[in-house]
């Protein structure tokens, strides 16, 4: 039998939560030339079995959610990043040198159950 979709609002389901770190708030605008800050998004929310079929989930998450529905001792699938992007920072160091540095996998673009 189809398991009824939980009544909880979509807000409680796994999705990306946006969080912006402004360098001005850290006082870093005195040495970081660009950007003005970076997105420190995070993934959070529930991964119920009924949702795993289309919540941007992986196959094993579906199986894990199915097993959790059968045996609650099996942990639920969890909400994790499924797409990440890099950031570049242009800043000045203490020796008046201008530095351009790249950092991989810094920003969460998408989340899903994994």
């Amino acid at each position: 039998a189809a398991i009824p979709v939980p009544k909880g609002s979509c807000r409680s389901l796994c999705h990306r939560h946006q969080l912006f770190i402004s360098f001005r708030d850290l006082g870093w605008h005195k040495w970081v030339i660009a950007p003005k800050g970076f997105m420190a998004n995070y993934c959070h929310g529930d991964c119920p079995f009924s949702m795993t079929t289309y919540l941007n989930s992986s196959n094993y998450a579906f199986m894990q959610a199915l097993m959790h529905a059968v045996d609650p001792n099996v942990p639920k699938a969890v909400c994790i990043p499924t797409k990440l992007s890099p950031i570049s920072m242009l800043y000045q160091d203490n020796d008046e040198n201008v530095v351009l540095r790249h950092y991989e996998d810094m920003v969460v673009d998408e989340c899903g159950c994994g």
Partner: protein
Amino acid sequence: SRFQEYDLLQFLDLERAPSPHRFQPVPPVLRKIFQAREAAAAGGASQDLCYVKELGVRGNLLRLFPDHGFFLNTQEPSRDGPCLQKFLYFNLSAVKEKGKLTMARLTLDLGPRSYYHLRPEVVVSLFVVEERGVWGRPHPKPGRMLALQSVPGPQGPVHFNLQGVLKDWNGSGRKNLGLYLEILAKGDRYSGVNVQVENTCDRLMRSLHASLLVVTLNPEHCHPSSRKRR
């Protein structure tokens, strides 16, 4: 509010937050690369952050060092001698982190391109300084010649590859005592071009700008190149 700034700085591979006294102008080459990366990230395009396509080298850390040197021939350029002699010095103490040096490019910007300064031809010669001066101001003694380049018109950027020199300075214990730059304007004595030579020398003294672009690749952040070796 109890933001662990120290942890974030460490995470970004920075010992502490820099506190520069004044902002340097952003070099066009770095601004162009930064804007291309931002546009690619905004468009969701996947990018190899460990390859700088604008420069054709691998690397994930680019630094532009300003020149802290000074002119040596402050008196009027002698009629048949070099037009300009300059001691170039780049403070490379920041380049200490682990990483492979993949580019060290010296750029001499001879001034804006224009139709008025097409002549005379100039000859640029570059030496490593191997001995500090012995009196007063450290008037450096030019050592090994690194480059001798004729430039048709005294304008625009001239680039020199200094990767070997930096490897010497970093590796074999040779100290970084700076570089010695000499620019000769080739006037033709009989065609009255000397006036132009003097104007050129004056203009070069005013507009010459030297900088060193260093690119390093941090193997911890950059996995071996996924590109197939051709």
